[in-house]
């Protein structure tokens, strides 16, 4: 699984490609993928933070 930083890097890469491709259909596809990568970055943020916190809590017990 990729972490939030990696997901955001992929989102930026998709946006860069969308800006450079010059084909409207492809641009829409790439922007949609960029949006999904940003959503995944949010998922990664809370999931990874939650897992780390849970591990920390169980270590403290």
């Amino acid at each position, binding site marked *: *699984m*990729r972490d939030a930083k990696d*997901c955001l890097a*992929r989102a930026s890469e*998709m946006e860069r490609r969308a800006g450079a*491709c010059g084909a409207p259909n*492809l641009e829409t*596809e*790439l922007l949609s*993928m960029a949006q*999904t*990568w940003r959503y*995944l970055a949010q*998922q*990664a943020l809370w*999931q990874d933070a*939650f*897992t780390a916190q*849970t591990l920390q809590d169980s270590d403290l017990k």
Partner: protein
Amino acid sequence: MPRPIPGIEDAQTLAQAIVDTIHEPLLVLDSAFSVLAASRSFYETFKVDPEHTVGCPLYALGDGQWDIPALRELLETIIPERVAMNGFEVNHDFPGLGRRVMLLNARKVIYETSANSTILLAFTDITARRAIEREKESLLSRTRDLLNQKEVLLQEMQHRVANSLQIIASILMLKARAVTSDEIRFHLKDAHQRVISVAEVQSHLHASGGVNQIEVGPYLTKLCASLAASMVGDSQPIALKVVADDATIGSDKAVSIGLIVTELLINAVKYAFPVFKDDARVTVTFASDDEAWTLTVGDNGVGKAVKPVQGRPGGLGTVIVDALVKQLDGQMTVASADGMTVMIRHPHLAALPPVEA
């Protein structure tokens, strides 16, 4: 059999007419590569006139624009050896025309009545075709890349969905360990097991490549193997067997079937063997014919309890199975002899009777 041309003059007239008629540029050269004749399209394409063409050495034409190493190789090396050469590609910057990709067809004509020979040299301008091919290749490459990127994205989505389910299951298990009430612990562990089951179905669908049609046999076999690994304890070993034909099924139905099998397995593991049994077994069967598919989950346990046990029948598992069977438009029958057998039959769409208006 072709009719002979009456005289040599007529033959020359015919040859010239052919040269003038063909669409592609064509040159007729003598054995020293001087131009004997050129087609009208040659003059038009390469913007030269007959006065400065006929009788001139090919390599000197148009201020030496035809003095091309590849063309020399074709005429001086290949043609003497092979007599004919088709599809010889020359990429050259022609003055006034720009860079062009030309496909050359050359043929040496040998006469029976003369020691002289001539060479026919035809040109096809494939610059536009090559540009289209390059564009097509580039488009294909971009499409392949996009598909790869989408595949990576889809996999990441599936990993995150699985992770969410795993987190929910972990929370339930943490809570189950923390509570003091046995009943609450039972329900929390039950909920944990169900979330794990959903995660298993999701993960097995993911592993099958996300295609629309799922092969039922391998799907159920893998699903049951991992369910058995997580549910069947050492205190009561249960042999789990999957028997399935080579049927395939839509992924939407595969989800429902997976969840039904999971619920029935949970039920069998929990309630079919309240006392130790040596040869405890659960068999999952999937069979499909022209009319319908049938899913059967049977055990050799104690069968249906006379006094309803919590969760069997009428428990959450039954509610879930009922809902899934209804969603599938299937028919469920339960038999209790030598254990318990649940059979779900689903007619194929084509086998359904027509709906009356």
